Every structure is written in structure tokens, then in C-alpha cells.
């Protein structure tokens, strides 16, 4: 085998995606460090405690990513149902065991490590839906029918109902956006999509009109529009987040130098409100780069979806793109006061193991799909290639 042929046969991993993710990981780790280094109440006096823990999370996540990347795509399909079932089991476990642990019902302790199954559930739903469509339509040129849509909704519905019981509104919204995106890209009939959209709106209306939520819960949810609705809780949080971000200006106050961050005014700043650290310390420039990197990841995910030669890859990649896209929007929007306060992490940036692992597993899957799509290319993949080019060859 000559050097030239090996070069030609080198399977393409998506380097732009890889670099964007690594950029987010580096930035995120720095932000977590900055948000926690002075918080003695969290770190117990060791300023690097959270930095080191987050580095461990990143390393484990990268290993998981590489493993998924290197797995044969046929294996991915075989393992997928197991991943789905495991995450359902995790969610059930949270609901049964979670009640016994201090009111916190989204977490379970596994040997001293807290695991948040709802993070993995998003990945599981994406894979499950993609698998269903793929099994029924791979190689056949039939359109997606009512049976497929209902099947996919069932796959999403089981974990979704378990998440409602926790209740974790943020994750539910993200899941909804993901399912909708996956259905749309899978090619579900337009009337079904319209029906789902309408159903979601009616559902929200019923919840509001039927007084299923207590007034304070609605206030808390809507506090981002008017902080006085919940001045000590969510209203306070969004106000402090806005002040911290606004305090950053164009160039920010410098990493480790944000006055609001140092004083610890913003709650949950290393997890849900991590973006405010970027906003205050790195300013419009740094926070803009952060948004751009996230956009880059989603752009590549959508490109991989378009590039994919099989139904599974197309639907899975699109689902992942919608998941990251909506979650990032939800999280940053919350920090900027244009979305309600719900506890969803910022992918690759927030402190935490479960969301890091689930996110990097998804990246691994994207790369796997990309590898498969480019493996059959006659030349080394150098720049984004549209399907149309292939047809032309």
C-alpha cells in the first residue's frame, strides 16, 4: 500500500466539528474553574477542586466519544435498543429511589457518583427514533406513514412521561424540540407535524387554563418576563444573570476578574448559569465566540445529516442537531432573560458528568455517521460535500 493510496483511503472524521467541540470543552473548563475557584462553600477551600473534576469528566467523555466513533456502524444499531432500555430503566430508578433522597428526583447515586438519566434519555430517544425509521424504510422508497409517526412518538413518549413525573420541564422542552426535528427530517407528513404543533400548544393551554400548575409555579416560569413575579427565586436569578452579562461589556472584565462572578451573585453559576461567566468575564467578544462555536457544532451536525447516505444516520444526526440547538438556545436564552428559567445545562460547557458524557457520546455518533458516509468517497474528504456532488461523479 503506497502512501498515496493510504491517504486516499483515510476515512474522514469531521475536523471542523472536532475542533469546535474541543474549543467548547477548553472554554467550558476554564469557565467552570473561574466560576468555582473562589466558592469555598462548594469547593471546601480547594480552588481547583471543580477544575479537576471537570477535567476528569471531559477525559471520560472523550474516551466514550472515541469508542463510539471507532465502533462499526452495524454494532451501533445493535447496541442502540439496549441504550434506550437502559435509559428508561435509569429514569424509573430515579423516580423510585429519587423520592427517598432529599427531594432531589433527577439524580441517582451510583457508587458515589451522581448520574442524571434524563441526559442520556435524550440520546436514547434520538437513536431509538432513527432506528425505527431505518428498520422500516432502509433501502425501500416508501414514504413515512402514520404507523411510523405513532411508533416514533411512542419511543419518545415513554421517557418523556417519566421526565414529566420528576418533573423536569427544561429537559421535556428539549426533548420535544428534538422529537419534532427528528420527525420532520425523517419525512413525516406535513399534517402530522402541524397536528403535533397544535397538540403542544393546546396542551400548554390546558395546563394553564386547567390550573394544573400552582400560581407560583407559573410565576416562576414566567419570571424572566418580569422579575417581580418571583423576586426571591427565578426572578432574582434572571435579574442577577442579566446584571452579570450586562456588566461584561464588549471585551469583558477578564477571566477570573468578573466582579459579579467573584461575589457569587449569580446562583448555579458553574452549571445552569455558566454562560453568565462568559458574558461577564469575556464580554461580547468571548461570549460571541462561545455562541459561534455552538452554532458551528450544530451546523456540522446538520451537514452530516444531509451527507448521510442512510436513513438512520440522517435522522439521528438531525435529532442530535435539534437537541443541541434547542438546549443551547434554552440555556443561553435563560441567562440573557429571553427564556424561562429551567435547569438545562449548556452542552460541553456546564459543569457535570452526565450531560458531558451524553453530549460527547452524541458527537461520537455524529463522527461515526460521518465516517460511514465518507468511507465510500473516492477522494479524501476535504471540505463539506453535498450529496449533489456525489451524483455528479
Amino acid at each position, binding site marked *: 500500500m503506497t502512501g498515496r493510496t493510504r491517504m486516499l483511503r483515510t476515512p474522514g472524521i469531521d475536523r471542523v466539528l472536532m475542533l469546535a467541540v474541543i474549543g467548547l470543552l477548553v472554554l467550558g473548563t476554564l469557565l467552570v474553574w473561574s466560576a468555582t475557584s473562589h466558592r469555598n462553600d462548594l469547593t471546601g477551600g480547594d480552588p481547583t477542586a471543580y477544575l479537576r473534576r471537570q477535567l476528569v469528566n471531559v477525559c471520560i467523555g472523550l474516551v466514550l466519544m472515541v469508542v463510539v466513533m471507532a465502533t462499526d456502524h452495524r454494532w451501533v444499531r445493535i447496541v442502540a435498543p439496549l441504550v434506550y432500555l437502559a435509559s428508561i430503566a435509569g429514569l424509573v430508578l430515579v423516580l423510585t429511589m429519587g423520592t427517598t433522597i432529599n427531594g432531589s428526583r433527577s439524580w441517582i447515586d451510583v457508587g458515589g457518583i451522581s448520574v442524571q438519566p434524563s441526559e442520556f434519555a435524550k440520546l436514547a430517544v434520538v437513536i431509538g427514533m432513527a432506528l425505527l425509521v431505518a428498520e422500516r424504510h432502509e433501502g425501500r422508497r416508501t414514504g413515512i406513514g402514520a404507523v411510523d409517526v405513532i411508533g416514533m412518538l411512542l419511543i419518545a413518549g415513554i421517557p418523556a412521561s417519566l421526565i414529566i413525573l420528576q418533573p423536569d420541564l427544561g429537559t421535556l422542552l428539549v426533548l420535544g424540540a428534538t422529537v419534532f426535528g427528528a420527525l420532520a*427530517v425523517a419525512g413525516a407528513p406535513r399534517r402530522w407535524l402541524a397536528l403535533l404543533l397544535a397538540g403542544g400548544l393546546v396542551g400548554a393551554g390546558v395546563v394553564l387554563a386547567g390550573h394544573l400548575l400552582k400560581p407560583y409555579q407559573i410565576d416562576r416560569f414566567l419570571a424572566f418576563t418580569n422579575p417581580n413575579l418571583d423576586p426571591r427565586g427565578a426572578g432574582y436569578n434572571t435579574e*442577577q444573570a442579566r*446584571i452579570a452579562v450586562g*456588566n*461584561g461589556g464588549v471585551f469583558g472584565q477578564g477571566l477570573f476578574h468578573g466582579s459579579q462572578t467573584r461575589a457569587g451573585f449569580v446562583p448555579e453559576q458553574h452549571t445552569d448559569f455558566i454562560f453568565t461567566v462568559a458574558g461577564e468575564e469575556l464580554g461580547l467578544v468571548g461570549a460571541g465566540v462561545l*455562541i459561534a462555536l*455552538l452554532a458551528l457544532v450544530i451546523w456540522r451536525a446538520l451537514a452530516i445529516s444531509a451527507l448521510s447516505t442512510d436513513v438512520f444516520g440522517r435522522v439521528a444526526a438531525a435529532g442530535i442537531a435539534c437537541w443541541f440547538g434547542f438546549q443551547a438556545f434554552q440555556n443561553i436564552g435563560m441567562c440573557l432573560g429571553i427564556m424561562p428559567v429551567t435547569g438545562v445545562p449548556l452542552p460541553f460547557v456546564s459543569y457535570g458528568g452526565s450531560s458531558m458524557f451524553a453530549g460527547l457520546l452524541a458527537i461520537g455518533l455524529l463522527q461515526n455517521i460521518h465516517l460511514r458516509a465518507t468511507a465510500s468517497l473516492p477522494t479524501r474528504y476535504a471540505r463539506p460535500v453535498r450529496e449533489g456532488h456525489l451524483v455528479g461523479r
Partner: protein
Amino acid sequence: MNPSTKRDPAAERSRLRLIVVRVLVFSLFATLFARLYYLQVVSGDSYRQAAASQSLREVVVQPQRGLIVDDQGRPLVANRTAWVVSVDRTLLGRLSERDRKILLRRLANAVRTPLKQIKEDLVTCGERGSVRGRCWNGSPYQPVPVATGVRQAEALRILEQPEDYPGVLAQQQSVRAYPRPYGVNLADVIGYLSPITAGELNKARKDHDTSVNGASTVGRAGIEEEYDRYLRGRPGYQKVAVDSMGRVLGNEGEVKGHPGDTLVTSIDARVQSVTEKALHDAITTARATYDPVTHRNYSADSGAAIVLEAKTGRVVAMASQPTYNPGEWVGGISREQLARLYSPQAGDPLLARAYQGQFAPGSTWKPFMTVGAFNNGMGPSTMLDCSSGFQVGNRLFHNYESASYGMISFAQALQVSCDTFFYRVGYYFWQKYGQDPTDVHAHDPLVSEAKAFGFGRPTGIDVPGESAGRIADRAWKLAYWKSMKGYYCGIDKHPPAGTSSYLKLFAHEFCLEGNYYRAGDAVNFVIGQGDTLVTPLQLARAYAALANGGTLYEPRIAKAIVSPSGQVIKRIRPKVQGHVTDPAHAISYVDNALLGTAKVGTMAWKMGGFPLDQIHIRSKTGSAEVYGKQSTSWVASYDDNYVVLMMVTQGGTGSGTSGPFVRRIWEALYGVHGMQVDTRKALIPGVVEPAALPAFQPDGSILPPRPRTTGSQP
């Protein structure tokens, strides 16, 4: 292979929809960026202002101090909540000069505290105009307490009208309370609390000790000081964000504190109560009694009473007079109260006579001299003359306490407390070893024995500030002469006008040979007169050694440290400080002899009708002469379980003043009524203290321990 999308309607639809998704996603991200731009650039100034006007206020949540309980679990010191009004100085600083004045005046009226005092409270220590003891040495971000023990109605008024009191806080805080079971006072055992000093705070900060802060109060004197680090607990910290108007915006995190540990003591409240009452009655009775020597009533200006466990050295009761109310210190003490506590006119009530007072022991000293004599050649067969006087050189020493009995033994001499008998003992040893009055290193078996019984050094009891007492031996005399020589030689050379002839003579002799240890010093020493001083606790501890065969304990008040949840953290056992070597078995001889004091000796007239055949009380009385004052009354007594000692200064004779009240303590200890001994009526169930600790229940209640079933009989 040609996966043409033209012939795959599903794939074609996907492609179109992916474009829609892209548009959607990017419009969302564009929204985010636009919003970011709006927040940081367009309205950045207003947010920067908001950021600058926010501040954090640190609120210290003081921990609840640990309880102090007696052997049965009765709280001796507890806590109650009091309203504390504090002022946030950061916010006060933002008011205009005029508003600040109005606010402080309004506040002074509301909490009924002088305006001047509030102003002094608000000054940081070390700043210009700070008043020591009043100034603030806490954190600059922490509200300064200006009034403690504010009435609820007043505190609520401040809470309800925050607009009238910007920057003023009213909170409930825990302060010391004294439940006083059976009316006990115990001030000199417990001690008191006062605010931490700047020096202590700096030291704590240097040692990274986070259990105190600028607003802490720490233990002063007594077990409150000795066990402060267990009792004080750990404060919690709360960070609160406030806006420029001082309105609390939200909680910024909290470090939880935890309450202090409980201290279990061996004090028994019932015994303490009886002891305090007995001492008080002894003093009032003495004050109503005519002194035939000075021709006026006894002034009985101070006194002490102690009950120790003879076998362990634990303190069961300890009382001093005059005393003070420990509650006076709660919430800050006024200057007038403090002046009274330190004043000699009020009898110096802060001086705990029981372990800080130093007095001539008088005849209570003789048992230890007997042990010393026996261990150095004398014995049960030694017979000496108990004459009415004893000539040493040109001076005649009288037999103060007893009549003349002729030739008697040590046992009889102890029982009737014959001075001339013991003069002969002292003179004998002085002649034998120490005829050269300038020889500092001359052997003195009696001084050695006094040291062996722990005199002249602190007993090591677990309260701070104990006095050491003093053995007036040759070395002491030399040291004293050296320190005072200049003064007296000055008087001798140039006597100031109006110097009495007595003082002139004294100064002359002192200047010449004040360091000489003469036979007169030796004979004074042996009967507990002269310059030798003991604390009542030292004497009680030495009598405990007579009771238990010669073991010298460091007395202990504390028995155990128990965590707030009821776990025993540490047991505190009396330490053995030493053993009295006793080759001649003198201790058992003395023990036997002292049995007779109550039957045929100096205590007999006060012990008539007491069931001595059931409760074998050994006792020794003493009436110590004090130059220029009325004599000190001593009674030291013990049996196998207890040592009971009482002392009244300027109180008359030992048995006459203290005797009846020592008897009363014994009766209460054993449940004696007339000739009947009913141990079920004893003050402590089972007569002696239980070995077990009180049981601390999870609900916070404390149950008494199970009484000891064995050894309850005297």
C-alpha cells in the same frame, strides 16, 4: 451505487426540511447574539451601574453555646433567646449626615439605649474615638449589635417599619440563661462570658480558628473559660446580597454552623444548694455573734465551702462568699456593675475564695505535720507536754486553742488541738536540722511533708486562675527579705514622721536579719501560723489524700464532654498528681486520731447526737490568727466518701462558727434526721455520685443516670 434523491421522495423531503431546520436554528442563534449585544453594548451602562450598587452582607449566625449540666443532668447553665438589634454600617454610611442623625436618635429611643452608647458601639476598634470595651472588632461587613435583650414589642416595631429604620436589623439570638436548680449560684465555678478581645481575635485568625468571630463572646473564668473550645460551637455564615437601599435581594450561600458541646460536671445541684446555704448561714450567724477577743461582732467578710469526692478528687460542691450573679454579664455589663464586682468595698466578689483565696490554715495544718513527724522518727509512742506556754528564746508562745493536758500522745494532741505539743515537735526538728538560721538548704522534714501533700503549688483543678498558696520555708523567707529589704532599711535609716515605734523596731530587725529562719518561725509553721498560706481547695484535696490513703488528685469539676446529639466525646477523669509516701503508716494513725475529734475533741460539742457510729466522720478544726484581724474559722472533715470543708474569715473559732454548718452538710449528704440515717433521703440517690453519665435523649431531654447500688452505705 447512486442514491439519487430524485427518485427517493422521502430523502428529497428530508433535504428540504433540513434547510428549514437550519434556517430555524440559525435564526435562534442570531436572536441570542442580538440579545447579547443589546445587554452588553446597548444597555450595558445601566447594568454596570446595577452591578456596582450591589453589595454582599455577611450575616454571622452565632452558634448556640453548649449546656453545662450537673451529675444528674440538671442544667446549671442553659440558653434563652433574646432580641438583638444591629445596625448595618455600610448602609448607614450611604445616608446623608442629617438622616443618619435622625435614624440613630430614633433607634436610641426605640431600644431605650443612650444615643452616646450606640455611637460608641458603631466605631471600629482602633479608629479615632473608639472606646475600649465598647468598640466593634468584628467584620466590617457584618451588622453591629447595638442592643441586646430588647423587648419583643420594640423589636417587632423595627421589623414592621423597615422604612423608618433603614439598615437596622432585629434578630433573635441565643444568650446564656441560668436556671439555678435548687437556687444554686455557682458563679465562681461557672464563670461568665464577655466579648472577644482584639488580641484574642487576632490570635484565632492567625491559628485559622474559625470558631470565633468579631461578635463572639468567650468564656471568662471558671469552666466557661476552661472548656470554652468545646462549649462555643462553630458559627454559621450567611451571605446576603443587598441593593443600594439595603433591601435584601437574595441568599448567596450559607455555611452552616453547629452548636457547642454539653459539659457534664460532677457538681450536684442539691449538694451545691445545701453547701451554699450552709456557708451563707455560717456567715450570717457569725455576724450576729459577739467576739470576746475584739469586743465586737465577727465581721465574717468572706468564706468558702467545698465538698469533694474523697476517692476521686471530683468536686461535688464549691461555694465562695461574697459572690455575684452570673446573669449580670449577659448582654454586656454596665460600667457601674463592673466597678462593683472589682471593688474591695463589696468584698471583691470576683475573687473565688475556694480556689483563689489564700489563708493561714491554722490547726487544720497539724495532721500533715503529724505525718511528717512520724515519717522522721516520731511515732505513736511519742509523748510530749501540752503545757500552757512554750518558751522559744526570749519569746513565750501560748497555747491558743486548748487547755493544758500534761504529757499526751499525737492522737490526743490532734483531737484537742494542743499548740504547745506541736511547738515542741517543730522546735525538735529545728534544733535537729536547722540551727543555723541563715542556712537556706537546711533539711526540714515538716516542710517536705507539706510539699508532699500538695501545698505551695496549684492543685491543677480545671478552672483557670487558681492560686498556688505558699509554704513559708527558708527559701521563701530569703526571697521575701531580698525583695523588701530596700523598703524596710529605708524606714530604718530615715523613718518618716509619724512612724510608730513598733514599725521602727520591726523595720530595724527586718533590715538586719529578716532572712533568718529562727526557731520561732519553725514553731509557727508547725501550727499553720506565720506566713504559710493555703487555698481552701488545697486543704480539701490534702484531706482527701488522708481519706484515700495518700493519693493526691488534681480536682476535676468536669466529668465529660457530650456532643449535641448525645454522644460522649470525651470523658474527663481526675488526674493523679502524686502519692504521699508514708513508711511509718502515719496516715492511718492520723485517720484514726481524727475520728476522736468529733467524739471527744474540739468538734464534740457541735456533734452531739450525730450518728457517728454509722457515719465515721474524721475532722479537724482550726482558728487561724491573722495579724490585725479576727481569726479565721476552719473545719475540715471527711469520711470514706466525701471531704467537707468550710472556712470563714474573721469568723471566730473553727468548731464554733463553721462546725454546725459542716454538720448540716453531712446530715444532708447521708439523709440524717436526729440519730436516724436514711440513705433514701440522701441528696444524691445512692449517696455517692453515679459512675454513669446522665442519658441524653434524641429529643433533647436529659434523664438522670442510674444510681450506684453498691457502696451506698457509709
